């Protein structure tokens, strides 16, 4: 910072306390992105920083989870549902000054679906047969089969549009089209964004954004309390929220996420291959106690693998209501009157660790002994997800609209149901909203009836902000901290 800039900044700071509002913000979050390419890693932290702020896709998620226009201002879908023609916004420039046009769209989509692609969600692009540039402002995507979720897929952070000119250094110096541009990254500490003055759409109200990475929940609490950060997105310690709520300096935002938190069950491992045992498991669990104990009351009970805020949601929680006596009876019927022993492997988040302790106690009450082991994510991926070496685990599935994972027999909970796979195939082919809704409801019912997993609760999106900060998203339809509309109230 030069001296003059410094003077200007201090003058600004002086005035800010008076008439003008602050135009910079410090946002705390728990996880630091490993690198800054949203199209080649699963880390949600990348999207949390960059989605919509720096990078944009053809379509995008709105704060209520609906799909709205992004870089494509409109699109046409062919009768057979196989061809999508996107009409791009004009005059869009990347932060390095180059134009964003159909060539870039083709490049981005082709890169994501290439043989050597490193895209973590390559399945999103699996149905694309070809991408053709019609003219600089028009691009035509041809699918090999109809896909009702295609526009939804294109809204993911893994489908944002990148430029071939800057792809080389994207992991360190991302160049996108968003309202903010990347400014600086002090690894281990913070990432700074600056306002993009040449933004094609509604300009951002803030001039500067700093994301600060604070992994320790206690440190997060201290940072907010000491006002070292103005916003903490995804606050990791729900127990502290009541305290913030009581403090007039802060505002607590409680919204919904796409995270179905489930007690995943290894459907191929005896005795869980017996549906009676799984049903017994479901009745042994007291959801409210878990929500109160692990999440301090934040979270919505669910009875199937579907987000409650979704219009197609069916509330099936009563079907697996807490009933330990019934559970014991079912266990006895299944041939386990004295219960059995199994493993409960827990990944790092506190919902899993605390929830695991509570579930272990609840299962013990019906005679099921669990041996808890706390795993790091890498271990969890290796042992549970890949190796399928587990009895039970707790994890939150945060990908939006992901009920289709139940159609994958090799998926880690190993649910292999031809009926359900058929339902999903139908869903893919259906483009009629009513038809899709009907299929989705049936699917929810089917996995609830099969007691595939223990459905616990929908993870809440918990954020704390300075009371004067406005325009933040309350809900988290995807992992994003959209700051394009955020401003300080005077």
């Amino acid at each position, binding site marked *: 910072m030069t001296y003059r800039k410094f003077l200007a900044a201090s003058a600004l700071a002086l005035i800010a306390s008076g008439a003008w509002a602050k135009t910079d913000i410090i946002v705390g979050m728990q996880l630091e992105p490993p690198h800054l390419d949203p199209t080649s890693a699963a880390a949600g932290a990348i999207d949390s920083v960059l989605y919509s702020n720096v990078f944009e896709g053809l379509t995008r998620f709105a704060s209520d989870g609906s799909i709205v226009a992004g870089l494509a201002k409109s699109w046409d879908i062919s009768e057979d549902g196989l061809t999508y023609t996107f009409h791009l916004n004009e005059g869009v420039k990347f932060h390095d000054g180059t134009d964003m046009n159909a060539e870039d769209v083709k490049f981005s989509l082709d890169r994501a679906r290439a043989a050597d692609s490193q895209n973590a969600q390559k399945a999103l692009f699996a149905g694309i047969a070809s991408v053709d540039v019609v003219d600089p402002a028009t691009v035509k995507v041809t699918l090999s089969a109809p896909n009702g979720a295609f526009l939804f897929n294109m809204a993911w952070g893994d489908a944002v549009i990148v430029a071939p000119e800057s792809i080389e250094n994207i992991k360190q110096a991302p160049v996108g089209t968003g309202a903010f541009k990347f400014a600086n990254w002090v690894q281990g500490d913070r990432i700074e964004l600056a306002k993009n003055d040449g933004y094609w759409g509604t300009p951002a109200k803030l001039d500067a954004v700093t994301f600060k990475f604070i992994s320790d929940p206690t440190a997060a609490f201290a940072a907010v309390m000491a006002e070292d950060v103005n916003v903490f997105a995804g606050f990791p310690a729900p127990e502290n929220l009541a305290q913030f709520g009581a403090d007039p300096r802060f505002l607590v935002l409680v919204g919904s996420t796409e995270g179905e938190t489930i007690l995943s069950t290894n459907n191929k491992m005896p005795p869980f291959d017996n549906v009676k045992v799984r049903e017994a498991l479901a009745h042994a669990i007291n959801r409210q106690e878990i929500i109160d104990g692990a999440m301090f009351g934040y979270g919505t009970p669910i009875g199937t693998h579907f987000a409650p805020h979704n219009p197609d949601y069916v509330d099936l929680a009563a079907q697996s209501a807490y009933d330990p006596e019934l559970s014991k009876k079912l266990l006895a019927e299944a041939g386990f009157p004295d219960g059995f022993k199994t493993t409960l492997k827990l990944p790092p988040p506190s919902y899993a660790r605390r929830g695991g302790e509570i579930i272990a106690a609840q299962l013990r009450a019906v005679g099921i002994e669990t041996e808890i082991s706390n*795993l790091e994510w890498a271990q969890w991926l290796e042992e549970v997800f890949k190796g399928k070496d587990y009895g039970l685990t707790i994890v939150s599935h945060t990908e939006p609209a992901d009920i289709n994972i139940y159609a994958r027999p090799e998926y880690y909970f190993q649910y292999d149901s031809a009926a359900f796979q058929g339902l999903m195939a139908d869903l893919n082919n259906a483009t009629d909203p009513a038809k899709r809704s009907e299929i989705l409801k049936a699917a929810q019912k089917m996995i609830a009836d099969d007691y595939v997993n223990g459905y616990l609760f929908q993870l809440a999106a918990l954020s704390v902000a300075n009371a004067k900060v406005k325009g933040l998203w309350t809900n988290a339809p995807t992992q994003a901290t959209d700051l394009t509309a955020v401003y300080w109230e005077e």
Partner: protein
Amino acid sequence: MKGRVSLWLGLGLTLVFALAAAVSFLWVPQDVTQLAIANKMKPPSLAHLLGTDHLGRDILSMIMVGARTSIAVALVAVGIGMGLGVPLGLTAAAHRGGWLDEIIMRGNDLVFAFPSLIIAILITAVFGPSALNAIIAIGIFNIPVFARVTRGAALSLWTRDWIMAARVAGKGKARISVEHILPNVLNLLIVQGTIQFSLGILAEAGLSYVGLGAQPPTPSWGRMLAESQTMISLAPHMAIFPGLAILLTVLGLNLMGDGLRDWLDPRLRRAR
């Protein structure tokens, strides 16, 4: 005089926690595997002398059972350190100046050079977190400590005339080490053992704090601290009592070590 005071004070504190651990096998105020979410984070009361935690468990019971974990981990870690370190130190001293001595001592230096916490984290990353792996991680770094202390003390003993007399009596190095050296370094080993014991309790707390120690539902002081950290302003008792338990136990052991050193040191005893 001062030695006596710290010895008794230290012994007293240590015994209190050892006793708490022993009693917990037979009786605790409330079963620590029983959760009572509705009763969570209650401040100290007659029903719960030290209050309850975030899952409604009785903190006094948790501390009593947790003492078992802390004591067991630290004790076994000291056992590993002594069991391997003392023979190594004796061997090195018996072959002082020789290649065996050189290898053992260089090996020691090498272990010392490794950052202990990082290696502990790696060990738990390999074998998964558990009390056993915490023991191994702490125990490994106890080995060179005991090897050094043993060797240092043994070296000065090897120059004594009575060792020469034993050699004249035809005794070999191993036999002399066991018969003559070991009993005479025992004092020092006991003192060092107490110190390593207290360091072990702190290390276990540190490892549990980062989630690498004993796994739930086994209570552990370090994990109690870690779990209560975010609630420290909501329910301070949850963080204060396990913290005090660690502090007082370590303090007790250190005082006892100090007192033992003064009491066992013949130099100081003669002066008294």
